[in-house]
């Protein structure tokens, strides 16, 4: 979207009330460079942290990063408010865990099969779900986590409350530490690829159509955009990334429990998206890693996670709807304005001297 509507400097008043002259709706870098930077940063950080607990946190955060990249496209840019991400996150995690532990598939086979399965499920369910107008879509999808959570907790096949343990890592190393490090590096590489694909989509003609649809559906339809097709594609795209993220998280943690499907998991994903910035891929990834770090590495936060996440979401919604990315953008604009005014006042002074 960076080359499209969203990158155009606008003079509008933002939903959050950010009055301003030039406000860049997105300042994301080029897809290739940005994706490479994300992958390299993730790999370097994993190498630095090694197989420590911080490494486990980062690797899990990278898995969540894959999910929120899909949410940036689906919710942030395109305003498709479907609460189905935790459902597909769980589908991905449970599918890969089942295929590996019960059917003896290798990791690569299991992940590929999970992607195919999630694509089919997303396509079939999306045919109905994405036709829902207005409040019907969020309402119906809000029920999905409840349905799947209860299915997982009561099903012996899915391991009931204990879940499924013994999920294989993405790469098997000589020790736990090297296994975790290598798995985290692969997760970072996958995140880079996923970010590249998302950026490419947003910068393409399809991305322009999505932006137009998000702004005004009637106008987009008048311009010839097939709303039904774009909605379905969006839903499938977001769902596949959520399932892929789920498979990666299951591999990193070696276990899947029903908690991954709960309503609070959905809120956590939304907090990750909104804290980082719902329309910036790098910022949303930072949000995902940051929230994962806070929830696992800070005892005061992890024991009060619901309060912290709920309060953070309220603060972001009220103070800076564009999240961390918006805050940085605002600071950059203020700095730029300040520098300009300083240079303007200096020039006449120099001319007079």
């Amino acid at each position: 979207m960076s080359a499209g509507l969203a990158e155009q400097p606008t003079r509008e008043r933002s939903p959050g009330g950010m009055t301003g002259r030039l406000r860049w709706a997105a300042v994301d870098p080029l897809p290739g460079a940005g994706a490479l930077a994300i992958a390299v940063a993730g790999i370097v950080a994993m190498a630095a942290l090694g197989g420590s607990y911080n490494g486990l946190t980062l690797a899990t955060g990278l898995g969540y990063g894959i999910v929120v990249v899909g949410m940036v496209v689906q919710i942030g840019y395109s305003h498709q408010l479907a609460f189905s991400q935790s459902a597909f996150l769980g589908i991905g995690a449970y599918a890969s865990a089942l295929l590996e532990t019960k059917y003896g598939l290798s990791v690569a086979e299991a992940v590929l099969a999970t992607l195919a399965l999630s694509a089919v499920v997303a396509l079939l369910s999306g045919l109905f779900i994405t036709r829902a107008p207005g409040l019907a879509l969020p309402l119906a999808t809000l029920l999905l986590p409840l349905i799947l959570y209860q299915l997982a907790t009561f099903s012996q096949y899915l391991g009931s409350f204990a879940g499924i343990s013994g999920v294989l890592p993405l790469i098997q190393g000589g020790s736990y530490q090297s296994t975790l490090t290598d798995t985290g590096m692969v997760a970072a590489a996958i995140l880079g690829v996923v970010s590249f694909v998302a950026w490419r989509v947003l910068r393409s003609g399809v991305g322009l159509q999505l932006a137009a649809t998000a702004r005004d559906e009637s106008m987009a339809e008048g311009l010839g955009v097939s709303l039904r097709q774009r909605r379905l594609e969006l839903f499938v795209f977001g769902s596949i990334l959520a399932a892929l993220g789920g498979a990666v998280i299951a591999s990193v943690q070696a276990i899947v429990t029903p908690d991954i499907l709960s309503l609070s998991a959905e809120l956590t994903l939304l907090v990750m998206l909104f804290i980082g910035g719902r329309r910036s891929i790098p910022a949303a990834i930072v949000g995902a890693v940051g929230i994962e770090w806070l929830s696992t590495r800070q005892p005061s936060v992890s024991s009060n996670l619901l309060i912290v996440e709920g309060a953070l979401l309220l603060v972001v919604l009220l103070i800076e709807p564009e999240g961390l990315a918006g805050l940085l953008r605002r600071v950059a604009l203020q700095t730029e304005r300040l520098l300009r005014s300083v240079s303007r006042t200096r020039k006449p002074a120099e001319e007079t001297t």
Partner: protein
Amino acid sequence: MSTFGNLIVAGITSGAIYAIFAACVTIWFRVSKVLNLAIGDFAMIGAIGAAKLAQSDGLPTAPAILVAIAAAALIAWLFDWVVLHPALDWARGHSGVVAVFFYTFALSFVLEGLAKLAFGTDVYAAPAVWAGGALSAGGLHVQRAAILVIALAVICGLGLVIYLRYTVSGKAATASGQSVTGARIVGVDGQRLRRRILVATAMLAALFGALESPITGYVYNTGPTISLIGVVAAGFAAFRHPGRAVLFGLAMGIAESLIGGYVSTEYNEVILYGLLAVVILMVPQRLGLQEQYG
């Protein structure tokens, strides 16, 4: 036949709760255009607050329930003052479909977290207002708390009808439901109405939570699920018709009970939610859910 009858009675009891929550969600949505996804958490505060005050602090039942209701009212008022007032009245926060869901979604999680911190993960039940064993007649067994809940639901339902049809405030709420801007032009103070109705519905939910908790028991995270059922029941009434919302709430309670009795006790909620999702997706226009907020 007695099994069927008892299932219907159990369904009407839980349905009465859903019905009142659905009516609360509908009335508040009419004036605020925000869905109250925290309505179940106010019930949780009423139930757990009353139980804790009565059991740990030795307060008599009635004052314990009153204090819990007052706490729910205070939280609702503070939420409106601190969050909704700047967000909706000053346009400081998100608008559109994000505002419809996310403010109360976040409040629900804050309340859930605070309840976990304060009360732990134990199951709580407020002391029964009408103590004693279940009443039996013709093979039907009805708990006294259930009779209270159903009776109160009927009273509240009638009160709601009287409020909407015969009071100035109720007519103002109806006018806001038709057109917020139009209502403002004719002098309806939408902000005050929104705050009053939020506080009133929070108090009502807390009262129902306290009365119903002897039957089901409440945990810190009971709220979101019952909120969601209330919201879905309200959704079936397009968030505009409280009477229809009450009927759908009752129907959901009865359906849940019958599925639990005849199909599966473990998967009754899964089946019910699945059916609800299918209906929402199949006939959204007929339910009046096609309006765009975004």
